[in-house]
């Protein structure tokens, strides 16, 4: 029975191929199913101005010293920064208001200027270079105000957000040029310290974002402190805080197209 079916199939394929060779069949150049096209006229549920929208978020921000203490704390803004990646969900309330939440991973780094107060890892002298990095996972909730009516487009908007970060890891790096004679021939010593007992596990931020479609300018202010007091360093005194404000840029990448891809029926055949 199966052999017979295969034979029939082979005959059919052969016949079709042969027909193709001997006849010039009609060739469809353009076809359109207008009913299907019109189905897409309905307002999409998903999309930049749909009922919900999901984007990937990639952000980079620079620490911005806003007072003298901040300026003393870090070497420069460019080398103290935040890099983060996550997802952002937005739910539409009405044309002008929406709300949502983010989930993200963030790496924070600070290149610390050296003085006695910030000589975090007490080696007995000021380090040549020292930086501290935090690896955070965070969530935030935000409220959004849009400035104008629009199509299925993010438009111009301002977000007010509160963020909660959980520090999953922190590292303190130091680099010192040393006398090889005193250090077994080594001219440089690098250290990498972790599980620091003077950093807080939880950080809180207030965030304001100005968005123009998928490009966002963000300002993030740390409400909580980075450091706890520890009996093991700085004579039990809490370390001076590092700068709290950072300003940066976010790029949003849609998780999927807000409109369906053009269906095959709509294809124009070359």
């Amino acid at each position: 029975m199966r052999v017979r079916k295969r034979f029939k199939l082979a005959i059919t394929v052969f016949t079709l191929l042969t027909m193709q060779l001997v006849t010039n069949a009609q060739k469809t150049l353009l076809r359109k199913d207008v009913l299907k096209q019109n189905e897409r006229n309905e307002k999409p549920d998903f999309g930049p101005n749909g009922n919900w929208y999901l984007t990937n978020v990639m952000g980079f921000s620079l620490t911005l010293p806003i007072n003298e203490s901040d300026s003393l704390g870090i070497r420069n803004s460019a080398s103290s920064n935040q890099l983060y990646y996550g997802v952002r969900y937005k739910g539409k309330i009405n044309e002008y208001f929406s709300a949502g939440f983010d989930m993200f991973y963030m790496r924070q780094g600070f290149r610390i200027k050296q003085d006695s107060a910030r000589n975090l890892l007490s080696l007995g002298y000021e380090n040549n270079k020292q930086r501290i990095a935090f690896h955070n996972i965070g969530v935030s909730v935000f409220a959004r105000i849009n400035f104008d009516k629009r199509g299925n487009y993010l438009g111009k908007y301002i977000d007010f957000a509160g963020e909660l970060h959980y520090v999953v890891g922190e590292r303190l790096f130091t680099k010192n040029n040393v006398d090889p004679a005193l250090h077994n021939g080594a001219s440089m010593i690098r250290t990498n310290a972790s599980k620091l007992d003077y950093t807080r596990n939880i950080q809180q931020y207030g965030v304001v974002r100005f968005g123009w479609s998928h490009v966002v300018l963000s300002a993030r202010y740390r409400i909580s402190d980075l450091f706890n007091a520890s009996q093991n360093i700085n004579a039990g005194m809490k370390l001076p805080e590092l700068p709290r404000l950072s300003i940066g840029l976010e790029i949003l990448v849609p998780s999927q197209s807000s409109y369906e891809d053009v269906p095959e029926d709509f294809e124009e055949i070359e």
Partner: protein
Amino acid sequence: MYDPTDFPLRQDYLNTVTSSCDSICGVSRWFNAIACSASEQQIKHMERFGFVKSIQKMRSTPVSASNEKSIALEEDTLDVHESILYAQTERMQYSLLKEKGYTGKGVRVAIFDAGFPEVNTNDCFSHIMQHKRIVATYDFVRNKENVYRASNHGTHVLSCIAGIKEDVPMGCATDAEFLLARSENAFIEIREEEDNWIESLEWADKMGADIVNSSLGYTVQFYFRDEMNGQVSIISRAANLALSKGILVVNSAGNEGDESWEIIGSPADADSVLTIGGIEPWTGMHTGFSSYGPTSDLRMKPNLSAFSFVVTALGRNTGTSFSSPLVAGFAACIRQMHPEWTAKQLFDELQKSGDLHPYFDYAHGFGVPQASYFLNADDKKTSPAFRMEWDKEKNVVKVLDVKPTTDSTTFKDIHSQWYRNFCYDEPLDYLYWQIVQPDGLIKYYEVVQPGDDVAAVIHNSNCPQCTVRIYYKGKFTEIPWAQLIKQLSIKQPDESNENLEPKN
């Protein structure tokens, strides 16, 4: 002739609003409206004025309907360049118009665009400048008269209406008069541009424009697809008013055909706007990027088509931005021929002059306008001209007895026959068919190149009340599906049979 929409705004109202908001962005006689920049508090304050009927928040950003994609040509030769140059007007039978002296003389065409650099210096426009046929210019973006700056999109557009390159016209209306308005800032997006467009239209009205060309489209950034009904966008509403005031607004369909938006934008969605789609010179077929109809309320758009690959004063360019001025120039010639016609008559007659008329589809509209329609009153054959056969087994109707050209032509082959192919004596070898619902909506349509034995296969629409329309080489057949089946002496198939849907 005037109507109440021509009256200026009351100065005391204007003064009151001026003193209550930050700044006045524009004033519209037609809508008896003022556009201004105001805070929420100021808006609330103004809502209390007895003369304020309603307050609407504006939004706007124009998108030029030009397409920066390079022309997909295998060869970039002078021949190609020349072929397009000749054919872009000749496809509309420009020679016939020229022969009879219809070159847009005495017709005033307004162009709304993003700037017109080089128009005052380029040789292609010297015949216009020398005879001072640019009657007025205004830059509504900067509120200055000089428009010979900024984006060169308008220069390309003017070329397609009236430019002459090396003695070859790039558009049909080489003797028309022009009003040039810069309504759009192509470099930044600002909210006032929608106001600028309306102000330009009212200015054009005041300056006596007969025809307006606007190669602009507003789509996904500011509207949803379901809003493309000619009523939501204020510029669509203004464009509708224009026709009643004797101005024919010609607008490009847009370049969203191969984008997710896909359909025409605003103001091309307006009922009274002559919306122009784009075709490829080398196939005569719809260009992939040209936006499709219908409107969201299922009206027929685009209305006509023209080349969307053109030669202009500044080189070659692509986009339905240039299809529109080609037809605007053509319309100016017809306006010269029939100054007694109302704008609505002109609109209707231009549609009838389409080379596919009475056939229409949402890709090509009624086709490319033809001068012979106006000069010869060319009656189209409307009698059935096909033999058809019902294939009961496959549940399809086969269209037979057409004589296709079976040459397998490559682009190069077509190129060598280009002029002949574009400005054909014989219509192109395409068969168009469609299924039309009783409410007039075209449910499904195809364009096919006929085969040797079967020209086209029409799948059962599963809609006995629907009509089948077929167009081939000027021959047009329209027949209700039920009648067709009856004529072919077969039984009406079971409606519940799912296999009857058109196959993709």
